[in-house]
Every structure is written in structure tokens, then in C-alpha cells.
């Protein structure tokens, strides 16, 4: 009789090994994604320069653009140059804006990043207490109310919420701006004020989804044997919910949170349009309509990297929550 050999290892070594495995898989995913993106955009559809210039371009302008974009040479050399440039922060120069893509993306991230984080914090801050309440009062009035409200939150499109918010807070009460972004150089106050309504509009549907996921995860967890054990120890229903069920229900919630952050970063394009915010979503949209492949390629790579990074962080969060996961590959 003795604890399994895993426990005999040095404390913390599990976590370090887990981290090492995850980091290797992170690097491999990034490399694979970059190859796929490069292949789709630069190799498969023929000549990017001709595509970007449209049908009426003269052969001379196409040749000039080819030289400017560095399209001479084999695909392997070009991929290495592109990937190497990205690693050193050189994303190339936008064809339409005539500025380095890195500067362009940095400007837009300064809006989209805080917006996504704010929306996510709002969604989580709203969903956690609401989901806990609904699970604790399962089948009673509070639960029915929460389920009804979240159903509305999921089914109503967020741009409609956005317009409603503008009407109330910007037009009627005039406490918050209706749109536009003054930039961070105008001070944190006005910049944040410009982000509040879009963040709320983005957060409400996400909060509704998150609250429902948390509620159903909690209800499933409350049926587990260890909750009965906790009650037999003398914990009240509420104590068992907070001390034992909540952490066990966090895994599905973390999964959804990770997916939502990735979505909010680039998927906010409709809200960015409603509030006229210079965000990443609008940048990609414009780049696609203007056939600015240099920008499209870089931003897509950036978003893929963000998704992979968030997935990595979610994996770390799983392991922090659940000791059993630290031993798995």
C-alpha cells in the first residue's frame, strides 16, 4: 500500500513538465499555422501582385509591385523571409496605406485589445454570479428569470443592443459618446468612455452564454457523490456549492471564456462599425475589400497566434484548476 509513484516525484516537477510539453506544442502549432496561411495567400491563387492590382493593370506595374512585395524567388525562400520578418517585428508594408503593417496593427490593437478584455471582464463578472444564483435556486423563480433573460441575451443580435445603448446613454442621457475613438493620447478617461458602450454590447450575449454554461455545469456537479459527502460533513447547500461545486464546474466555463476572447478580438467588426471604432476587425475587412494581401496575411497570422496563445493559457488554467490534468500529455 502506498501512494502512486507520481506523487513521489519532486513537487512542482509535474507542472514544469506539463508546461514544457505545452510550450513545444504551442511553437509547433504556430509554425504549422504560418505555413498554411502563407501557402493559401501567396502560393495557391497565382500571382498576388496581379490579384492586388486588378484586371486592368499594365504588366509594368505588376512587375514593379512584384519587386516591391519581394515576390521574386522560390516559395521556400519567400516563406523564410516572411516568417523571419514576423519574428523580428517586420510585417511588411501595407500596399494601400503605404505604412508598415506592424504600426497599423499596433494602432488597431490598442483599440481592439482593451475592448475585448473589457467585454470579457464584463461578461465574466456578470455571468459568474448570475450562473451561481440560477444553479443555487434551480427551478425556482430566480432560475426561471435568469434562464429567460439569458435566452433573450443569446437570441437578440448584439448590434441591436448596441443601437439601443446608443439611444439611451448617448442620445437621451448624453453620458457616453455615441461613437468614435479619441485615441489613448487624449487620456485614459475619454478613451475608456468611448469603449464602454461597445464593450457592454459585446459582453451581453457572451455573458448570457457563459451564465448558461456555468449553470448547467454547476447543476451537473451538484449531483456528484462528493457533494453528498460534503453535505454529510455538515456543509450547507450554499457552502457545498461555493466550496466544492464551483471549482469543479470551472473547466467548461474556461473553455468558453477562451473561445470568447478569440472571437471578441476580431469578431467585433459589426460593433466596431456601429460605434465607428478603428479596430482590428475593420482593418481586416477593409484590407480584404482593397485586396491588400500584405495586411490580410499579417493580421490573419496575428489572430491565429492570439487563438493559439489563448488556448495555451486556457490549458494552463485547466491544469491550475485540476491536479489530474497535470499528469497527462
Amino acid at each position: 500500500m502506498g501512494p502512486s509513484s507520481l506523487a513521489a516525484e519532486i513537487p512542482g516537477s509535474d507542472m514544469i513538465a506539463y508546461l514544457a510539453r505545452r510550450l513545444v506544442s504551442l511553437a509547433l502549432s504556430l509554425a504549422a499555422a504560418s505555413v498554411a496561411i502563407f501557402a493559401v495567400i501567396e502560393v495557391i491563387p497565382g500571382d498576388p501582385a496581379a490579384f492586388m492590382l486588378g484586371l486592368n493593370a499594365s504588366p509594368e506595374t505588376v512587375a514593379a509591385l512584384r519587386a516591391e512585395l519581394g515576390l521574386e524567388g522560390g516559395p521556400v525562400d519567400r516563406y523564410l523571409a516572411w516568417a523571419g520578418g514576423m519574428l523580428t517585428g517586420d510585417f511588411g508594408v501595407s500596399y494601400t496605406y503605404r505604412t508598415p503593417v506592424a504600426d497599423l496593427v499596433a494602432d488597431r490593437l490598442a483599440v481592439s485589445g482593451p475592448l475585448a478584455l473589457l467585454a470579457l471582464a464584463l461578461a465574466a463578472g456578470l455571468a459568474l454570479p448570475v450562473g451561481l444564483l440560477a444553479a443555487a435556486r434551480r427551478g425556482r423563480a430566480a432560475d426561471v428569470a435568469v434562464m429567460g433573460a439569458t435566452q433573450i441575451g443569446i437570441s437578440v443580435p448584439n448590434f441591436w443592443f448596441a443601437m439601443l445603448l446608443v439611444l439611451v446613454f448617448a442620445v437621451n442621457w448624453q453620458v457616453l459618446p455615441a461613437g468614435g475613438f479619441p485615441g489613448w493620447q487624449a487620456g485614459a478617461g475619454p478613451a475608456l468612455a468611448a469603449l464602454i458602450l461597445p464593450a457592454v454590447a459585446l459582453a451581453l450575449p457572451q455573458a448570457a452564454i457563459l451564465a448558461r454554461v456555468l449553470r448547467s455545469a454547476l447543476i451537473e456537479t451538484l449531483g456528484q457523490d462528493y457533494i453528498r459527502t460534503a453535505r454529510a460533513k455538515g456543509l450547507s447547500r450554499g457552502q457545498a456549492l461555493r466550496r466544492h461545486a464551483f471549482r469543479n464546474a470551472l473547466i467548461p466555463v474556461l473553455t468558453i471564456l477562451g473561445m470568447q476572447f478569440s472571437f471578441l478580438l476580431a469578431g467585433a467588426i459589426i460593433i466596431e462599425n456601429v460605434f465607428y471604432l478603428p479596430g482590428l476587425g475593420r482593418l481586416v475587412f477593409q484590407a480584404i475589400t482593397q485586396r491588400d494581401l500584405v495586411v490580410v496575411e499579417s493580421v490573419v497570422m496575428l489572430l491565429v497566434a492570439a487563438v493559439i496563445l489563448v488556448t495555451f493559457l486556457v490549458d494552463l488554467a485547466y491544469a491550475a484548476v485540476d491536479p489530474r490534468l497535470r499528469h497527462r500529455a
Partner: protein
Amino acid sequence: MTLLRLRDLDVAIGGTPILAGVGFDLAEGAVMGLVGESGSGKSMTALALMGLLPEGATVTGRADFAGRDLLALSETALCGLRGREIGMIFQEPMTALNPLQTIGDQVAETLIVHGAARRAEARGVAAERLARVGLPQDRFPLSLYPHELSGGQRQRVCIAMAVALRPKLLIADEPTTALDVTTQAQILDLLTGLVAEERMAMLLITHDLAVVSGTADHVAVMQAGRIVEAGATEAVFRTRAHDYTRRLFAASAHRPDRRPPPPGGEAPPLLEVRGAVREYRLPRPGPFAPHPALRAVDGVSFALGPGESLGLVGESGCGKSTLTRAILGLDALQGGEIRLAGVPVGPGMDPALRARVQVVFQDPYGSFDPRWRVERLVAEPFHLTGRPDDWRDRVGAALREVGLAPGDGAKFIHEFSGGQRQRIAIARALIIRPDLIVLDEAVSALDVRVRAQILDLLAALQDSHGLAYLFISHDLSVVRAVTDRVLVMQAGRIVEDGAAEAVLTAPRHAYTQQLVAATPKIPEDWM
């Protein structure tokens, strides 16, 4: 002095009566057994005392415990009582602990939640209590998580949690049913030791008459929500005044009528296992270290003749299930070979060969697709041989053979009880006329009376169809009742092999001796 005086306990859930007029007395420091089959209301009685009945339950009656009526207390008062004055442990130790909390925190929580100690102090008490239940700090630090412990060790943690505040009453609901016999013996020893040492009373709920006979001073027999007989254990078990008690005893000692085993020797073996080796890859100990291997089946050899009943016994983790999977041709071996009627079996085997061996599993609830009708479930093995045109007639005949009506084929599996489902599983195995049926703990989840009926059915089918059985079980008495020969497996090896009666009455190998000694028995002179 009487610690608990229960009178006229009635419980109904959603209007359906569950318990009717249940009552008993439990003296301080005494052990009382509550026995009966599943659904008789044993656990409901315990949950009613704890105030932990499912929602929608209505309770009437009176339960005087240390001067208070448990059934009339408020939820707040009950929270103060549970874990402090009444501790409880449950059947399934694998899921009874919170997987995300260390065992130290979970034991300490009993003290913290009752305000009996601050955190640091509570951990000290937790360490001391864990040591008392057999988990000393040098080998089982407080920082361990439940998944790092075996089932028996986890049950010890549950016991430490339940007795952390030295309650006056411990309710143990089937505490050893999910454990192996040797672990069961250790846990029962631990419980009786704690009861004697701390002057604690214990209400021991079990379906196992032998466990009660060795542990409890008093016993109450429950049937269909009522106590039909109660008294001193020896008197109740010797006289068996109530008909139900008599039937329970008869069923637990039941041995089906079996024809003598076929004369061995001439016929070539039906199943031949020669030097079988099966290994599993374990997780790497370090990021770049090679995978270590676990040898679950380690050079096993035996032969099974046509029409023979062979028992395979051993505790969980000994390799029984791995060997079963290899015999069924589900997994490839890493060494040795398995032949069925002279032809090697393995993952790529011919369907016609696969049709010659069928299997019945333990869990009558998990081994059927709930969305299929019974006729489709029973006819499923036909995919091996091609479905004959008269398949519905054959399904009807198979259902009749296992004691069901041919019309049952149109029903869904949820309409059947556990025993009936096991009959359907047997019909499914029979339908393509196999030579060998592997019975993997096939009666372990059944109540004694249903188990006796299924054993009779298996004996009759063996007689009429000339079937061979490989009967895998941890229950020595059942193996003894239905097999000719028995193999004892330990740590991937067969350690003893011989006639069932001889091996189980006069075991030669130390491990078999240990198994036989650990198996609870009703004293011979009570029978």
C-alpha cells in the same frame, strides 16, 4: 443507553411511498446492521436520519437522537449536527471525494466548517486522524489528491472525514461493496476498531449477510420499505423467523443443479491460452524519457475444454479484464498466443471465428444502447455471420430461452429490471450459438435472489446447449457454485489452478489463502 430511537418513519417521494413504519433502537457504542436487497429502503432510511433525502420527499415519524428529534430539526440545526454528531460514509469511494482538493484539506474541512479548529490546527488534527485510519503522514502527506490513492485508501480518507470530530454515530452505507475482499476485510477491521475505541455507534447498511454476521451485534432485515425482522444478529440469523429472511439466506447459499463436468482428455481444447503477455504503455516520467510499460498479463497459460466451466478469480487490477479483452480478440498480445478451436484470435480475426465466443458484462445498465429496441439489441451479433431471414423468430426463441416473452423484443431496455437486462444480455450472447460465453462479473451487480435465478438459468443453458463458460468474478462463493475448475490470478500471473472445490476449501498458494481468509463468512454452526 439508547442513542437513537427511530419510530414510525414514513417517507414518500413525489407521492410514492418509499418507507413505511420503519423503527429501531440503536444503543450507544453498538453496531447495528441494516440488510436487504436493493430498493428495500436501507439507504433512504439513512438519508432520512441525516436530513439528506432528495428534493420532493415527505417525511413523518420521530427519531430521538441525544435528546432531539432529527426529523423535526431545521436545516441549520442539521448542518450543525451532520459531521459533528453523526458521520456518514458511502459506497463509492472513487467518486466520494472532491477531485480538486487535497485529502488534508478535505479532512480538515470537517473541523473548520463546524468551527472546531482554525486552519493550521485543523490540519494537525487531519494528519492525526488520517494516521489513525491507516494513512500515516510519511507515506500519505496531506498534500495528496484523491486520484493518487486507490479505492481502499480513498475509503479510509472518507472514514477520517466522517470521524474527524468523533461523532456519536457513524452511518456506513455499503462501505465495502465496491472494494476487493482483502481491502474489505481491512476496512471492516478499521471500522470495528474505531467503534470500540471511540465508543461510537455504527449503523452498517449492507446487502451482504456475511459482512453483517461478522460485524454487527444487532440486525434489522428490510424488505420493500419495511423492517420485517430485527434482533440480535445471531438469533435472527439462526432462527430466520420471517419468510423473507429465509429466502435471502437460501439465495445467498444457492448452488444451481449442474450436470457433472464433461470427461476431459480426449477432446482438443476449445480455448487455448499459451504464454499470453499484454503490456500497456504508461505516461513518460519526464518530458523525453521513454514510456515505461505495465505488464498487465504476464505469461498466462491455460486451456478450456468444450462444455467446461472455468472460473477466473482475482482482485481488481490483477489483469482479469485485460486477459478477457485479449480472449475476445479485442486487443493484440505482445507475446504468446490465444487459440479458439485451434485458430489464433486477435483484432483482425475472421467474424465467423468471433461469433464462436460471446460475452456478458457486469453492468446491466451500461451495456445496452438505450435507443434500440430489444430485438435489435439481441440480433446484433448477427452482423458477424449475416442476418438470417427468420431473425425475428430466432430473437423470440432466444428471449424465451432466457425466461422472457418473445413480445418483449418490441420494448426498450429501460422497461426492464437489472435481472431482466442480464437475461437479455445472455439472449444476445446465445443468439448465434457460440461455443464459449465469457461471463465477466455477470452476476456481481445483482441482488442475491436474482443472482440465484440467473445462475440457475446459466446452468440450464449450459446443459441444453453444451456451452463452455469462462466465469470471471471476484466472488469466491459464486465461482465455487458454478464452475468445475478455477484459476487464481494475481499481478498478471496465474498463481493457482485446480478443481474449484479443492482450491477454494484447501488453497495452497499464499495469495489464494489470503483471499479465502478475507472472504466474510456466516459461522458454520449458524447455518
